């Protein structure tokens, strides 16, 4: 930065700290590392190499990038190789814990199918090229001489936050473009829209540990909802004496459903009706105070008496009465909506109906509390959704896009076929993929830039949920391949093409981050002065504490308008494309551990399958392992049937993650199907988000039978005491909490 005149406000903006003033906890000097004594300590990677002692594992702190939850990790490094990830005990997202996808991070890093050389398209095919050639092409197409600017340029990314988001935004501004499409298949966009409208806050904090009853409509908080490891740590407290009650309501059993005290199968898309039925029972039977609701909302709830709700949802009245009884007697409670409840044409209305329960039960302010505001809005997460994918496809179709940059997203794989994205992308003349793997999107780009794995790279991250610390991402080892580059470095290069006067002074992303973090907590009278202690502390702990400013949360009851259930004669079943804690949205299909790790529910490995209720199987005349064809108005997929009673008879569930093209990975090649391809163009009416669970299908026998490869022989215990179960009454008698009502 030396020699560049820049005022303080601009400096803060460049560094990502602009916002509501300084709000950082004081930091002490890090304690001395004592590796010579043979102790395993967390250290900063920039310490000299003489600290590396053969045979001694050293732990470096970083941030997990296997999903966007932002868990803190410690990477164990020996002789210059990272061997294993552990959770960072100081991270307030995961408290030292880590899920299987996090564990699999090392296999993403060492993956044998990584791209190691830049690729450029020549005569229709991607061929290896030098960095000079690849970057030369980029300069030619999007550099200052190209005259490309404005909305002819777009970024398509997964969720981004921290300084990468700051630089990405700066690049968009430098290009004069407002086109940033942030796409995540597994998201909470509809719920966040409801939070925003009814609570005045996009993402409040849930106090699972305080709740005595949790009723979740499709929110798979232990598996795939926002921050599963964090929620699991909270869940453990919830299950301690006196032990809260968990009710899960959904058409297909999720991991959370598998741990519920009561799992209720609901007809897909009628979750909102059930929520209003519970509200009705609470107001009528339990005489809950209705004055918290406006008259129109009261009138609306009054229409959902027990008979109506039973008829529409398929859930029997005694179950509804039981759940309402728990909600009434155990306080505070927490009612959640997510996943299958939200991904409907009326997903917003459903989530809003669920939120009404929280208002009636007085949970807002008790188990649903404000997260406060991140003081550095610039660094806040840009959380992805599927609407961005739809918008991107529309933008491409409209024409005029001349250059698109892709990072950390694979829309060619995730886009439903009705979008015809693969074909449409041909009309974009210049596509660049910043990619670690030869995924479907990278293979259709014109230039592929091989980037470092997240565990060789620098970055900062702010989690969308529980973002009370900035997660520092630092290399856990030297880059495996000398020919890959850091994403931040490349982003900076792109910025230098357009704004050399501001960014030219930074040698690389490391230099930028170091200056940004060093400059962070103090009054910035001398911007160029480095505060080395701050930087050291950030590297050693992997975390920068932030004080989110306080904020009040208040509830506003809105009337909702839910449709009656309608049958579809031609397509009588509901398709549930179910996300998995494992392969996630398909991005982890190249990790052999995760392919071999059995699905938590069906225990199937290395494949796709279709979950079906025995009543449906009887009707169709299929048995386990029979192949069925599942056809929507957009196409068909085939899968072997797994039959069990954890799914509604009107639903058929096909997991996400498989069905990749062969270039992606040797581990994903020829494995299963991608149910996202057959989704119908159904959107949430209010927000425009794709209704992930709004597709109707027909099912037919394919006439084949194949072995369903899964773990374990017996599905039941056949009288052996393998897993014994006691009632919560016994638990409370022996382990405490029996005095609590």
């Amino acid at each position, binding site marked *: 930065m030396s020699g560049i005149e820049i005022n303080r406000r601009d400096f803060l903006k460049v560094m990502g700290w602009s916002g509501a003033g300084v709000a950082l906890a004081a930091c002490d000097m890090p304690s001395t590392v004592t590796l010579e004594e043979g102790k395993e300590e967390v250290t900063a990677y920039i310490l000299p190499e003489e600290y590396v002692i053969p045979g001694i594992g050293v732990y470096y702190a970083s941030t997990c990038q296997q999903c966007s939850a932002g868990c803190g990790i410690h990477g164990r490094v020996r002789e210059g190789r990272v061997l294993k*990830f552990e959770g960072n005990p100081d991270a307030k997202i995961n408290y030292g814990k880590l899920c299987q996808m996090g564990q699999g991070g090392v296999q993403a890093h060492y993956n044998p199918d990584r791209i190691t050389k830049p690729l450029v398209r020549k005569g229709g095919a991607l061929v290896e090229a030098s960095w000079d050639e690849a970057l030369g092409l980029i300069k030619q197409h999007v550099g200052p001489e190209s005259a490309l600017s404005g909305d002819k340029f777009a970024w398509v990314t997964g969720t981004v936050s921290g300084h990468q988001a700051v630089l990405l935004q700066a690049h968009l501004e430098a290009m004069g473009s407002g086109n940033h499409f942030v796409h995540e298949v597994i998201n909470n966009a509809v719920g966040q829209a409801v939070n925003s409208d009814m609570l005045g806050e996009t993402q409040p904090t849930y106090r699972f540990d305080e709740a005595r009853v949790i009723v979740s409509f499709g929110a798979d908080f232990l598996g795939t909802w926002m921050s599963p490891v964090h929620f699991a740590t909270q869940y453990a407290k919830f*299950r301690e004496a006196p032990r809260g009650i968990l009710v899960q309501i959904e058409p297909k059993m999720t991991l959370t459903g598998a741990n519920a005290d009561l799992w209720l199968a609901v007809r897909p898309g009628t979750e909102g009706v059930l929520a209003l039925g519970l509200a009705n029972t609470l107001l009528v039977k339990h005489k809950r105070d209705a004055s918290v609701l406006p008259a129109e909302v009261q009138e609306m709830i009054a229409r959902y008496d027990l008979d109506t709700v039973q008829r529409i949802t398929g859930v029997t009245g005694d179950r509804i009465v039981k759940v309402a009884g728990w909600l009434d007697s155990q306080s505070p409670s927490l009612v959640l909506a997510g996943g299958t409840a939200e991904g409907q044409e009326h997903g917003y209305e459903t989530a809003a109906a669920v939120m009404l329960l929280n208002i009636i039960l007085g949970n807002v302010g008790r188990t649903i509390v404000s997260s406060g505001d991140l003081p550095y809005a610039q660094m806040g997460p840009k959380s992805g959704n599927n609407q961005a994918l739809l918008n991107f496809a529309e933008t491409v179709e409209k024409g005029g896009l001349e250059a698109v940059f892709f990072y950390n997203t694979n829309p060619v794989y995730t886009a439903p076929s009705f979008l015809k994205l693969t074909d449409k992308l041909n009309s974009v003349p210049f596509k660049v993929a910043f990619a670690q793997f030869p995924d479907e999107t990278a293979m259709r780009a014109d230039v592929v830039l091989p980037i470092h794995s997240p565990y060789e790279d620098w970055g900062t991250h702010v989690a969308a949920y529980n973002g009370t610390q900035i997660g520092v991402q630092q290399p856990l080892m030297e880059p495996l391949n000398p020919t890959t580059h850091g994403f931040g470095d490349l982003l900076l290069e792109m910025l230098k093409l357009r704004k050399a006067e501001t960014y030219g002074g930074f040698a690389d992303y490391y230099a930028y981050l170091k200056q940004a973090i060093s400059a962070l907590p103090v009054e910035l009278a001398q911007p160029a002065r480095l505060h080395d202690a701050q930087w050291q502390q950030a590297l050693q702990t992997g975390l920068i504490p932030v004080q989110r400013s306080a904020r009040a949360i208040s509830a506003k009851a809105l009337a909702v308008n839910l449709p009656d259930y309608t049958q579809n004669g031609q397509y009588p079943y509901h398709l549930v494309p179910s996300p998995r804690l494992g392969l996630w949205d398909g991005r982890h299909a190249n990790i052999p551990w995760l392919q071999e790790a059995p699905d938590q529910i069906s225990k199937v490995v290395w494949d796709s399958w279709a979950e079906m209720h025995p009543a449906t199987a009887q009707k169709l005349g299929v048995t386990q392992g029979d192949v069925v064809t599942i056809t929507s108005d957009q196409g068909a997929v085939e899968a072997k049937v797994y039959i069990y009673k954890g799914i509604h008879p009107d639903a058929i569930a096909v997991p996400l993650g498989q069905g990749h093209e062969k270039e992606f990975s040797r581990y994903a090649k020829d494995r299963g199907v991608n149910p996202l391809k057959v989704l119908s163009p159904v959107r949430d009416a209010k927000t425009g988000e794709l209704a992930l669970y709004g597709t109707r299908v027909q099912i037919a026998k394919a006439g084949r039978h194949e072995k369903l490869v899964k773990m374990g022989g017996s599905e039941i215990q056949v009288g052996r005491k393998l*897993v*014994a179960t006691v009632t919560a009454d016994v638990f409370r008698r022996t382990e405490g909490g029996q005095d609590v009502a």
Partner: protein
Amino acid sequence: MSLKNILENWSHYRRGIEQGGHHKYEHMWGMALDLNKCIGCNACSVACYAENNLAVVGHDRFAKNQVMHWLRIERYWDEPDLDKVSDSTSQYQEHGASFLPMMCQQCNAATCEPVCPVAATYHTPDGLNAQVYNRCIGSRYCSNNCPYRLRYFNWFSFYESSWPAPLHLQLNPDLTVRDKGVMEKCTFCVQRIRVAKDKAKMENRKVVDGEFQTSCQQSCPTTAIVFGDMLDPESKVSTLWRTHQVELGKTKQAKQNRELRGYRVFEALNTEPKVMYMERVREV
């Protein structure tokens, strides 16, 4: 164990588990696993793959039960008749699933040990059921005798296919990659035990409860796994066994309070497992 030793100490070697067995233990590593907290997420299992160099076998070999997962999560359904509906059974699995993480139970009276023709599996002074890979000849008698089916046989030289470069760089140098013809199983992360014991010895002190964790325990998002030395009466694991009135050296537990949740799987077989499970809980 020389013949002279056996003859001179015959009565000592004849002591059954109710008399404390014939071993002289320095430590007795044991575990307590709370099924009220376990959510069946698989984090422990994959953490075990990462720590212990477990081979990935692939779809076709998995189908032949040649999988090498030392720690697997079994899942059972409450409702029988999975593939049909009838009036006598419920239409849904209304109480979710039953998850059971199963790793070597490190039995003190292990049925796998006496059948090994070459003493490749034996009991260590740490109370561990050890497997000496370079002594194993692959008779598979131990696997045949394990009532828990927790021993895994290397039918192939998995190093040829499971870690294509550069995946092999992830392998943990603290333990081996096993070759074809060798039996393997959960070791309670013996390499971590080794490091902790050496460190304690260098500092001239005892191993402190909680100073190291097994890989599965460290990963577990709900802290369902507790591990430690059962000879240390103050350790968390000892406390839990005591609280739940499950005792080593008993062929039948005489619980004062029958409602306490602690139990051992297949306890009636008298293999004296050192993993205590605490029963799953449901509201109704």
